Protein backbone atom coordinates (compact mmCIF):
# COMPACT_ATOMS: atom_id res chain seq x y z
CA UNK A 1 0.00 0.00 0.00
CA UNK A 2 2.79 2.42 0.97
CA UNK A 3 4.80 1.60 -2.13
CA UNK A 4 1.79 2.16 -4.36
CA UNK A 5 1.14 5.49 -2.66
CA UNK A 6 4.81 6.40 -3.12
CA UNK A 7 4.84 5.56 -6.83
CA UNK A 8 1.46 7.13 -7.49
CA UNK A 9 2.22 10.61 -6.16
CA UNK A 10 5.96 10.76 -6.90
CA UNK A 11 5.75 12.47 -10.32
CA UNK A 12 3.30 15.15 -9.22
CA UNK A 13 5.29 15.73 -6.02
CA UNK A 14 8.53 16.25 -7.95
CA UNK A 15 6.86 18.56 -10.46
CA UNK A 16 5.31 20.62 -7.67
CA UNK A 17 8.36 20.72 -5.40
CA UNK A 18 10.84 21.52 -8.18
CA UNK A 19 8.73 24.50 -9.11
CA UNK A 20 8.54 25.91 -5.61
CA UNK A 21 11.62 24.95 -3.60
CA UNK A 22 15.36 25.38 -4.13
CA UNK A 23 16.43 21.82 -3.35
CA UNK A 24 18.03 19.32 -5.70
CA UNK A 25 16.22 16.14 -6.75
CA UNK A 26 18.08 13.93 -4.29
CA UNK A 27 17.05 16.11 -1.35
CA UNK A 28 13.47 16.33 -2.60
CA UNK A 29 13.19 12.55 -2.90
CA UNK A 30 14.61 12.16 0.58
CA UNK A 31 11.92 14.51 1.89
CA UNK A 32 9.22 12.73 -0.13
CA UNK A 33 10.19 9.37 1.36
CA UNK A 34 10.04 10.84 4.88
CA UNK A 35 6.64 12.41 4.14
CA UNK A 36 5.21 9.08 2.96
CA UNK A 37 6.51 7.38 6.10
CA UNK A 38 5.05 10.08 8.36
CA UNK A 39 1.70 9.82 6.60
CA UNK A 40 1.66 6.06 7.08
CA UNK A 41 2.68 6.30 10.74
CA UNK A 42 0.08 9.00 11.41
CA UNK A 43 -2.58 6.69 10.06
CA UNK A 44 -1.32 3.67 12.05
CA UNK A 45 -1.10 5.73 15.23
CA UNK A 46 -4.55 7.19 14.57
CA UNK A 47 -3.28 10.76 14.53
CA UNK A 48 -5.25 10.94 11.30
CA UNK A 49 -8.61 9.24 11.27
CA UNK A 50 -10.29 11.11 8.44
CA UNK A 51 -8.99 13.40 5.75
CA UNK A 52 -10.66 16.71 4.97
CA UNK A 53 -8.65 17.02 1.76
CA UNK A 54 -7.25 14.60 -0.79
CA UNK A 55 -4.46 12.31 0.29
CA UNK A 56 -2.02 14.11 -2.03
CA UNK A 57 -2.83 17.48 -0.41
CA UNK A 58 -2.16 15.99 3.01
CA UNK A 59 1.03 14.30 1.79
CA UNK A 60 2.34 17.45 0.11
CA UNK A 61 1.50 19.42 3.27
CA UNK A 62 3.75 17.14 5.32
CA UNK A 63 6.45 17.36 2.64
CA UNK A 64 6.21 21.15 2.57
CA UNK A 65 6.86 21.35 6.33
CA UNK A 66 9.83 19.01 5.98
CA UNK A 67 11.25 21.06 3.08
CA UNK A 68 10.92 24.32 5.02
CA UNK A 69 12.62 22.70 7.99
CA UNK A 70 15.45 21.53 5.74
CA UNK A 71 15.82 24.97 4.19
CA UNK A 72 15.94 26.61 7.62
CA UNK A 73 18.63 24.15 8.70
CA UNK A 74 20.64 24.93 5.57
CA UNK A 75 20.51 28.63 6.38
CA UNK A 76 22.01 28.14 9.84
CA UNK A 77 25.65 29.03 10.04
CA UNK A 78 28.08 26.70 11.83
CA UNK A 79 28.47 27.34 15.58
CA UNK A 80 31.41 29.36 16.84
CA UNK A 81 33.73 27.84 19.46
CA UNK A 82 32.07 29.74 22.33
CA UNK A 83 28.64 28.52 21.34
CA UNK A 84 29.83 24.93 21.08
CA UNK A 85 31.04 24.88 24.69
CA UNK A 86 27.72 26.37 25.87
CA UNK A 87 25.71 23.77 24.00
CA UNK A 88 27.91 20.97 25.23
CA UNK A 89 27.13 21.65 28.90
CA UNK A 90 23.46 22.59 28.48
CA UNK A 91 21.28 20.20 30.58
CA UNK A 92 18.76 19.60 27.77
CA UNK A 93 21.62 18.41 25.59
CA UNK A 94 22.81 15.89 28.22
CA UNK A 95 19.25 14.71 28.83
CA UNK A 96 18.65 14.18 25.14
CA UNK A 97 21.79 12.16 24.87
CA UNK A 98 20.60 9.92 27.76
CA UNK A 99 17.26 9.46 26.05
CA UNK A 100 18.92 8.47 22.82
CA UNK A 101 21.07 6.05 24.74
CA UNK A 102 18.02 4.44 26.35
CA UNK A 103 16.28 4.19 23.00
CA UNK A 104 19.32 2.53 21.52
CA UNK A 105 19.40 0.02 24.41
CA UNK A 106 15.71 -0.69 23.93
CA UNK A 107 16.11 -1.36 20.23
CA UNK A 108 19.08 -3.63 20.82
CA UNK A 109 17.16 -5.57 23.48
CA UNK A 110 14.22 -5.96 21.08
CA UNK A 111 16.56 -7.29 18.41
CA UNK A 112 17.72 -10.00 20.82
CA UNK A 113 14.17 -11.23 21.40
CA UNK A 114 12.73 -14.04 19.27
CA UNK A 115 10.58 -13.12 16.25
CA UNK A 116 7.32 -14.18 17.93
CA UNK A 117 7.99 -12.02 20.97
CA UNK A 118 8.93 -9.01 18.90
CA UNK A 119 5.82 -9.44 16.78
CA UNK A 120 3.49 -9.69 19.77
CA UNK A 121 4.98 -6.60 21.39
CA UNK A 122 4.88 -4.66 18.12
CA UNK A 123 1.25 -5.59 17.50
CA UNK A 124 0.25 -4.75 21.05
CA UNK A 125 2.28 -1.60 21.81
CA UNK A 126 2.74 -0.02 18.40
CA UNK A 127 -0.31 -1.06 16.40
CA UNK A 128 -2.39 -1.28 19.61
CA UNK A 129 -4.19 -4.39 18.40
CA UNK A 130 -6.38 -6.10 20.95
CA UNK A 131 -5.29 -9.46 22.38
CA UNK A 132 -8.10 -11.12 20.38
CA UNK A 133 -6.86 -9.67 17.10
CA UNK A 134 -3.28 -10.71 17.88
CA UNK A 135 -4.47 -14.24 18.69
CA UNK A 136 -6.21 -14.42 15.33
CA UNK A 137 -3.33 -12.95 13.32
CA UNK A 138 -0.64 -15.03 14.98
CA UNK A 139 -2.71 -18.23 15.24
CA UNK A 140 -2.69 -18.40 19.04
CA UNK A 141 -5.38 -20.43 20.79
CA UNK A 142 -7.07 -17.43 22.39
CA UNK A 143 -6.54 -13.97 23.93
CA UNK A 144 -5.45 -15.44 27.28
CA UNK A 145 -2.63 -17.34 25.61
CA UNK A 146 -1.47 -14.13 23.97
CA UNK A 147 -1.65 -12.30 27.30
CA UNK A 148 0.52 -14.92 28.99
CA UNK A 149 2.98 -14.93 26.11
CA UNK A 150 3.13 -11.11 26.10
CA UNK A 151 3.88 -11.19 29.83
CA UNK A 152 6.76 -13.62 29.28
CA UNK A 153 8.09 -11.47 26.42
CA UNK A 154 8.06 -8.34 28.58
CA UNK A 155 9.93 -10.16 31.35
CA UNK A 156 12.51 -11.33 28.84
CA UNK A 157 12.83 -7.81 27.44
CA UNK A 158 13.36 -6.33 30.91
CA UNK A 159 15.99 -8.98 31.56
CA UNK A 160 17.75 -8.17 28.29
CA UNK A 161 17.80 -4.45 29.10
CA UNK A 162 18.96 -5.13 32.69
CA UNK A 163 21.76 -7.46 31.64
CA UNK A 164 23.38 -4.79 29.41
CA UNK A 165 23.40 -1.99 32.01
Amino acid at each position, binding site marked *: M*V*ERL*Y*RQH*RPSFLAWAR*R*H*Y*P*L*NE*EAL*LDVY*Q*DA*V*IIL*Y*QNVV*EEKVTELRSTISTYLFGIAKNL*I*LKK*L*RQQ*KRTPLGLDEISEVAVAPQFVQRSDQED*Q*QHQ*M*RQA*LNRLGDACRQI*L*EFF*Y*YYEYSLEVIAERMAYKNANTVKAQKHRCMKQ*LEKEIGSRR
Partner: protein
Amino acid sequence: MENKLKDAFRKEMRQRMKERLREVEEEVAVPRIRRLSVGRWLTAASVVLLLGMASWYWLATPSVQPAAIAQSMFAPLPNVLAPEVRGTAAESALQNAMQAYQIKRYPQAIASLKQLPDSLQSQEVQLYIATAMLADNNAQEAVQVLQTLPPEAATQWYLCLAYLQTGKQEEAIALAEQLRQSNDTFYRERADALLRALQ
Protein backbone atom coordinates in the same frame (compact mmCIF):
# COMPACT_ATOMS: atom_id res chain seq x y z
CA MET B 1 8.32 1.48 29.46
CA GLU B 2 5.33 1.25 27.11
CA ASN B 3 6.12 4.63 25.59
CA LYS B 4 9.75 3.68 25.12
CA LEU B 5 8.69 0.45 23.45
CA LYS B 6 6.32 2.28 21.14
CA ASP B 7 9.03 4.76 20.30
CA ALA B 8 11.53 2.00 19.57
CA PHE B 9 9.07 0.26 17.24
CA ARG B 10 8.23 3.57 15.57
CA LYS B 11 11.90 4.27 14.85
CA GLU B 12 12.56 0.79 13.65
CA MET B 13 9.58 0.86 11.34
CA ARG B 14 10.73 4.20 10.02
CA GLN B 15 14.15 2.80 9.26
CA ARG B 16 12.72 -0.30 7.56
CA MET B 17 10.35 1.79 5.46
CA LYS B 18 13.07 4.23 4.50
CA GLU B 19 15.27 1.39 3.27
CA ARG B 20 12.38 -0.09 1.31
CA LEU B 21 11.41 3.26 -0.26
CA ARG B 22 15.02 3.82 -1.31
CA GLU B 23 14.87 0.47 -3.11
CA VAL B 24 11.57 1.47 -4.72
CA GLU B 25 13.19 4.72 -5.79
CA GLU B 26 16.01 2.84 -7.51
CA GLU B 27 13.44 0.67 -9.29
CA VAL B 28 11.45 3.73 -10.36
CA ALA B 29 14.44 5.79 -11.44
CA VAL B 30 16.55 3.28 -13.40
CA PRO B 31 14.41 0.98 -15.57
CA ARG B 32 12.54 3.79 -17.26
CA ILE B 33 15.42 4.15 -19.72
CA ARG B 34 16.23 0.47 -20.11
CA ARG B 35 12.69 -0.60 -20.91
CA LEU B 36 12.20 1.70 -23.88
CA SER B 37 11.25 -0.42 -26.88
CA VAL B 38 12.29 0.38 -30.47
CA GLY B 39 8.88 1.95 -31.07
CA ARG B 40 9.27 4.16 -28.06
CA TRP B 41 12.78 5.13 -29.10
CA LEU B 42 11.37 6.19 -32.47
CA THR B 43 8.63 8.16 -30.74
CA ALA B 44 11.20 9.77 -28.47
CA ALA B 45 13.41 10.58 -31.47
CA SER B 46 10.55 12.24 -33.31
CA VAL B 47 9.65 14.25 -30.21
CA VAL B 48 13.27 15.41 -29.97
CA LEU B 49 13.20 16.32 -33.66
CA LEU B 50 9.98 18.27 -33.23
CA LEU B 51 11.36 20.02 -30.17
CA GLY B 52 14.50 20.81 -32.11
CA MET B 53 12.49 22.33 -34.92
CA ALA B 54 10.36 24.24 -32.44
CA SER B 55 13.37 25.60 -30.61
CA TRP B 56 15.03 26.55 -33.93
CA TYR B 57 11.90 28.52 -34.78
CA TRP B 58 11.88 29.98 -31.29
CA LEU B 59 15.53 30.95 -31.48
CA ALA B 60 14.89 32.65 -34.79
CA THR B 61 12.89 35.34 -32.93
CA PRO B 62 15.52 36.64 -30.52
CA SER B 63 13.73 39.78 -29.31
CA VAL B 64 11.44 38.00 -26.81
CA GLN B 65 13.31 34.81 -26.24
CA PRO B 66 15.73 35.43 -23.28
CA ALA B 67 13.10 37.25 -21.24
CA ALA B 68 10.62 34.47 -21.94
CA ILE B 69 13.16 31.86 -20.84
CA ALA B 70 13.82 33.87 -17.68
CA GLN B 71 10.11 34.09 -16.96
CA SER B 72 9.59 30.37 -17.50
CA MET B 73 12.46 29.55 -15.13
CA PHE B 74 11.45 31.99 -12.44
CA ALA B 75 9.95 30.66 -9.21
CA PRO B 76 9.63 32.83 -6.10
CA LEU B 77 11.78 31.94 -3.11
CA PRO B 78 9.89 29.82 -0.56
CA ASN B 79 9.06 31.66 2.63
CA VAL B 80 11.58 30.52 5.20
CA LEU B 81 11.64 33.84 7.06
CA ALA B 82 8.19 34.09 8.60
CA PRO B 83 7.61 30.59 10.05
CA GLU B 84 10.27 31.36 12.67
CA VAL B 85 8.80 34.74 13.58
CA ARG B 86 6.82 35.07 16.79
CA GLY B 87 5.99 37.82 19.24
CA THR B 88 6.45 41.55 18.90
CA ALA B 89 4.46 43.90 16.66
CA ALA B 90 7.49 44.44 14.44
CA GLU B 91 7.86 40.71 13.97
CA SER B 92 4.16 40.43 13.11
CA ALA B 93 4.78 43.02 10.42
CA LEU B 94 7.39 40.70 8.91
CA GLN B 95 4.98 37.82 9.11
CA ASN B 96 2.25 39.85 7.39
CA ALA B 97 4.63 40.93 4.67
CA MET B 98 5.68 37.35 4.04
CA GLN B 99 2.07 36.21 3.98
CA ALA B 100 1.41 38.76 1.23
CA TYR B 101 4.47 37.38 -0.58
CA GLN B 102 3.22 33.82 -0.26
CA ILE B 103 -0.20 34.63 -1.69
CA LYS B 104 1.51 36.48 -4.55
CA ARG B 105 0.42 39.98 -3.59
CA TYR B 106 3.81 41.24 -4.59
CA PRO B 107 3.31 45.04 -4.55
CA GLN B 108 1.89 44.75 -1.03
CA ALA B 109 4.73 42.45 0.04
CA ILE B 110 7.37 44.83 -1.37
CA ALA B 111 5.83 47.85 0.38
CA SER B 112 5.51 46.00 3.70
CA LEU B 113 9.03 44.57 3.55
CA LYS B 114 10.48 47.99 2.79
CA GLN B 115 8.66 49.48 5.78
CA LEU B 116 10.06 46.98 8.28
CA PRO B 117 12.08 48.54 11.10
CA ASP B 118 15.86 48.50 10.85
CA SER B 119 16.07 45.75 13.45
CA LEU B 120 14.38 43.36 11.01
CA GLN B 121 16.04 44.53 7.83
CA SER B 122 18.55 42.02 6.51
CA GLN B 123 20.08 40.81 3.29
CA GLU B 124 17.48 38.04 3.22
CA VAL B 125 14.66 40.58 3.39
CA GLN B 126 16.32 42.44 0.50
CA LEU B 127 16.45 39.21 -1.49
CA TYR B 128 12.71 38.67 -0.95
CA ILE B 129 12.04 42.27 -2.02
CA ALA B 130 14.05 41.68 -5.19
CA THR B 131 12.33 38.39 -6.06
CA ALA B 132 8.93 40.00 -5.43
CA MET B 133 9.95 42.76 -7.87
CA LEU B 134 10.93 40.15 -10.43
CA ALA B 135 7.63 38.34 -9.96
CA ASP B 136 5.88 41.67 -10.38
CA ASN B 137 7.62 42.24 -13.76
CA ASN B 138 9.85 44.94 -12.40
CA ALA B 139 13.22 43.48 -13.32
CA GLN B 140 14.91 46.87 -13.59
CA GLU B 141 14.48 47.64 -9.87
CA ALA B 142 15.18 44.01 -8.95
CA VAL B 143 18.62 44.34 -10.60
CA GLN B 144 19.38 47.44 -8.53
CA VAL B 145 18.53 45.65 -5.27
CA LEU B 146 20.27 42.39 -6.18
CA GLN B 147 23.48 44.16 -7.17
CA THR B 148 23.86 45.41 -3.59
CA LEU B 149 23.70 41.90 -2.09
CA PRO B 150 26.60 39.48 -1.49
CA PRO B 151 27.16 37.11 -4.44
CA GLU B 152 25.52 34.00 -2.99
CA ALA B 153 24.03 31.36 -5.27
CA ALA B 154 20.38 32.43 -4.80
CA THR B 155 21.21 36.11 -5.31
CA GLN B 156 23.21 35.35 -8.43
CA TRP B 157 20.45 33.19 -9.86
CA TYR B 158 17.80 35.88 -9.50
CA LEU B 159 20.20 38.55 -10.77
CA CYS B 160 20.83 36.36 -13.78
CA LEU B 161 17.07 36.11 -14.48
CA ALA B 162 16.65 39.85 -13.90
CA TYR B 163 19.46 40.58 -16.41
CA LEU B 164 17.75 38.41 -18.98
CA GLN B 165 14.48 40.23 -18.46
CA THR B 166 16.20 43.59 -18.93
CA GLY B 167 17.97 42.51 -22.12
CA LYS B 168 21.44 42.15 -20.56
CA GLN B 169 22.09 38.73 -21.98
CA GLU B 170 25.89 38.81 -21.76
CA GLU B 171 25.87 39.63 -18.05
CA ALA B 172 23.27 36.90 -17.49
CA ILE B 173 25.35 34.29 -19.29
CA ALA B 174 28.48 35.28 -17.35
CA LEU B 175 26.60 34.84 -14.07
CA ALA B 176 25.06 31.54 -15.16
CA GLU B 177 28.54 30.28 -16.11
CA GLN B 178 29.77 31.14 -12.61
CA LEU B 179 26.76 29.40 -11.06
CA ARG B 180 27.40 26.32 -13.15
CA GLN B 181 30.76 26.00 -11.36
CA SER B 182 29.34 26.60 -7.86
CA ASN B 183 28.92 24.03 -5.09
CA ASP B 184 25.20 24.65 -4.81
CA THR B 185 23.64 21.70 -6.65
CA PHE B 186 20.20 23.25 -6.97
CA TYR B 187 21.30 26.48 -8.61
CA ARG B 188 24.02 24.68 -10.55
CA GLU B 189 21.36 22.50 -12.20
CA ARG B 190 19.20 25.55 -12.90
CA ALA B 191 22.06 27.50 -14.40
CA ASP B 192 22.96 24.56 -16.57
CA ALA B 193 19.38 24.29 -17.84
CA LEU B 194 19.27 28.02 -18.47
CA LEU B 195 22.50 28.02 -20.46
CA ARG B 196 21.27 25.10 -22.55
CA ALA B 197 18.01 26.93 -23.20
CA LEU B 198 19.92 30.03 -24.27
CA GLN B 199 22.21 28.19 -26.70
